[in-house]
């Protein structure tokens, strides 16, 4: 069937992101000015995001993709993350003396892949999206070629990521074998009792669980996050995670077999992931690594809302909307905070990312009051203190969990929040209550670079805005036709 114009418009964001990626690579030999490239990258990210306004809701390419409020929301989220990461990377690339054009191009390619993931309605399309984002990510992880850690990060990510993709692909094959289709809507009608289908779904869950860093598939996360260039880590923590959660949620809600079968899987994954992430984070001395573990923990919190979906969709008249809203709101707040926090880590890290330990953050409250205050806001948001996005996200997840009578899950999440308080608080304590020991290294910047400061300001403003006035976003994520097809 020949694609129609409307179909093309529904993937316009991905097309624009890719086109700008290619253009950037073509421009590289001619444009020596890094700032022009940065601007160009940001323009691409922004135009792609804005182009979502042109698309009409509905499915495109004979049901391969589904363009609905759900995917619109994630396109916005991913576009915003890409925009901020490109802006934040500007000063980083200058400091590390790395070529800019390819970096931005890779970010745009990865974002396009994530966009496909967010709107995929068919498993092979999802696979293409996953590969697009993953391959760009592998390269980005190893972008600091002369650094051993960065290369290690890339190799680890690539090897383990390939395994996960293989699981995912095998899962698709089994599902196809069981149901004769890879289209989610058609799989939905299949017999939920089929063992082959269940096995396929289990393998898909393993593959996607890897991407969202859910324990026990999280082993790669700390090393990869730590080794990758910090702006890339910001992207990893926000973008692919949100996109994969989007796909997971779409599969989970569309296929009834998955709704039943994955419930306990999500329950257990959520608990294990929360504990592994939080207990791992406690013992870290590097702030970057600590934030990596914290992103594992946050995947666990998100999975709590996933577990709530089943009860709400079967046993209550309100329907599963609060649980969906919890996932979406949580991911939005979390992504913005992580981008902001990693931007600060990147700036404090200095050349060669040498200053990442807790001790390097000591006395930041007096040295760089702005950076310290912003970091405090981010950490408090991750911790879930009121008037931040993190609090409202957590509040919503709690609400969904308790609404579905998952009291134990809520209690375990509570215990985890308290454990988490310890390590987030430690950074705040170090920043404000300890003095820096010894001489300050000569290359430490006295303030954030202007571009990084812009990213931080946007992230702080968004964090507090979402914490104080969540009505607008709630209006979107609570929409009854989140998935337009139903």
């Amino acid at each position, binding site marked *: 069937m020949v694609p129609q114009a409307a179909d093309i418009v529904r993937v316009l964001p991905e097309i624009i992101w890719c086109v700008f990626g290619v253009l950037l690579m073509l421009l590289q030999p001619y444009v020596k000015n890094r700032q022009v490239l940065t601007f160009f990258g940001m323009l691409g990210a922004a135009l792609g995001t804005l182009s979502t306004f042109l698309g009409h809701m509905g499915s495109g390419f004979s049901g391969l993709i589904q363009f609905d409020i759900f995917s619109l929301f994630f396109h916005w989220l991913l576009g915003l993350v890409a925009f901020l990461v490109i802006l934040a990377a500007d000063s980083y690339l200058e400091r590390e003396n790395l070529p800019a054009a390819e970096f931005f191009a890779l970010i745009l390619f990865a974002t396009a892949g994530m966009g496909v993931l967010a709107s995929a309605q068919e498993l092979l399309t999802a696979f293409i999206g996953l590969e697009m984002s993953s391959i760009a990510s592998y390269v980005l992880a190893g972008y600091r070629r002369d650094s051993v850690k960065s290369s290690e990060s890339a190799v680890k990510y690539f090897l383990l990521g390939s395994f996960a993709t293989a699981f995912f692909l095998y899962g698709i094959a089994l599902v196809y074998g069981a149901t004769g289709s890879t289209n989610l809507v058609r799989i939905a009608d299949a017999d939920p009792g089929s063992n082959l289908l269940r096995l396929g779904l289990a393998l898909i869950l393993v593959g996607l669980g890897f991407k969202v860093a859910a324990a026990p598939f999280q082993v790669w996360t700390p090393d990869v996050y730590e080794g990758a260039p910090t702006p890339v880590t910001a992207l990893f923590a926000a973008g692919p995670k949100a996109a994969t959660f989007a796909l997971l949620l779409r599969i989970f809600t569309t296929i009834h077999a998955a709704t039943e079968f994955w419930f306990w899987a999500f329950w257990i994954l959520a608990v294990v992931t929360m504990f592994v992430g939080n207990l791992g984070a406690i013992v870290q001395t590097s702030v970057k690594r600590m934030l990596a573990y914290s992103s594992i923990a946050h995947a666990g919190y998100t999975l709590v809302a996933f577990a709530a979906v089943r009860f709400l969709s079967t046993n209550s008249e309100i329907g599963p909307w609060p649980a969906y809203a919890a996932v979406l709101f949580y991911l939005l707040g979390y992504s913005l905070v992580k981008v902001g926090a990693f931007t600060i880590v990147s700036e404090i890290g200095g050349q060669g990312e040498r200053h990442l330990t807790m001790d390097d953050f000591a006395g930041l409250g007096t040295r760089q009051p702005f950076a310290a205050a912003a970091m405090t806001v981010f950490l408090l948001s991750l911790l879930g*203190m009121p008037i931040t996005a993190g609090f409202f996200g957590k509040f919503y997840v709690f609400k969904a969990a308790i*609404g579905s009578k998952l009291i134990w899950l*809520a209690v375990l999440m509570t215990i985890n929040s*308290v454990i988490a308080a*310890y390590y987030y608080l430690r950074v705040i304590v170090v920043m404000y*209550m300890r003095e820096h020991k010894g001489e300050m290294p000569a290359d430490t910047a006295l303030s954030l670079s202007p571009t990084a400061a812009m990213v931080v300001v946007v992230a702080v403003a968004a964090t507090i805005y979402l914490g104080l006035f969540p009505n607008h976003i709630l209006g979107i994520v609570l929409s009854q036709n989140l998935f337009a097809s139903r």
Partner: protein
Amino acid sequence: MELSGHLLSVVIFFPALGALALLFLRGDDALWIRRLAFVVSVAEFLLSLIMLRGVAIGAHGYSLVEYKPWINSPPINYHLGVDGISLFLVILTTFLTPLCVMASWKGIHHRIKEFHVMLLLLEVGIIGVFLSLDLFLFFLFWEVMLIPMAFLIGIWGHDRRIYAAVKFFIYTMFGSAFMLIGILWLYNLTTSLDLPTIQAYLQSNPAALSHRTEMLLFLSFFLAFAIKVPLFPLHTWLPDAHVEAPTAGSIILAGVLLKMGTYGMIRFCLPLFPDAAHRAAPAVAVLAIIGIIYGALVALVQPNLKKLVAYSSVSHLGFVVLGIFTFNAISMQGAVYQMLAHGISTGALFFLTGIIFDRRHTYEISEYGGLSTPMPKYAAFFLFVALASMGLPMLNGFVGEFLILLGTYQVHWTWASWAALGVILSACYLLWAYQRVFFGEVTHTKNKELPDTDSRELWGLLAFAVVILWMGIGSPFFTHRIAAPVDTVIEQTKPHFAEEAARPAARPAVRSTSVVFDGRVVSR
């Protein structure tokens, strides 16, 4: 009244404006920072006094209510209101804050601007807690308040400040996280987060909560409050936080923060879950009595003056909890009164320990001795405050303790007799400490030349002393306003199971006597 439309919002957020103004001052301009903070906090105190006009004597329910939809789903409203109980707690807060600024005049030397900003933000959080009538809003202020307090301890405290700050934070957060689950669970059952709405709903549908659910909900709230009070055995954060906090932190902590716990019990635990509260009462009372005696005994053996005062708080707050959980109008009035009295007298005790710490930089009792020779004025004030704290008649501590014991005696004479032991012990530890610090020869040469209180300290102490005396002899001014809301709480706390007629025995009889000995009559 014109102002009344937004008076409560103004009272809550005025200190935040002050904090904002402070940010525009230069960080090294210590004098003006202190002056501005002082002016702002005094203005805030005067503002809060306007609330007195808005709360009619004998009024049931909330006055000066503000109601504005905030978040659509779940329906969260910006709902504020004040009654006789919260009224005085707010005024207590605004009264202590300027005194905190005064107490830090000499003790705080670095990051002065941030210190006062934190102090004012803390005031915002505390007042917000007392005035919120929406569970979400209440929880929000409850959590927000933690951050400036932890900073006050952690940045400007003494040697082990970081340990104390983190312990304080995590302890409180542990409790409040469970409270959040409780709030959401309650929302799930009643589809409202608005306190009066939930109350009305639960009153009219006594069967809405099963016994087990009600007990679990009660416990989830109670845990958060009990940690804050702190009720034995959850008190271990308190000595650390108190000893390590700067003087101003201790004053606010002991003066107001602990009352947030007892206030929460009165406002939430009892009226929302009356059956569970009644069933839990014996256990709570036992813990409270253990707290009273244990706190007093530990205070008795403290070599550290500040720790002594801290443990005396554990003991005194035990009285308050006991007074609340006897469900008797007199003892609950006494509990509210004791909350206020303890806020003033313990605030004053910490102010006093702060004064000698500024001079000698130690709290060890053994470092002092014979201080009444070099510092006669100081010694006189200390004695006055110590007597108030141990409950001497005509001073503020007496009224509350007397009412609590009187009310408790009518219900359970054994509880009252054990608790009375605490009164005796409090005289022991305070007088003994007083003797060791102030009487005898001056044993340390450093103490011989100690300057007596200067005019700033004198004015602060005078303010404390006036209020102590006034609360001792002018108690009707307070009890008149406290009585009606306390009666409301008692009315709401009537257990449903007692109405099921199966139990005509002890409890209803007790309530009828409590009407005869109504607190207003007694205190006159």
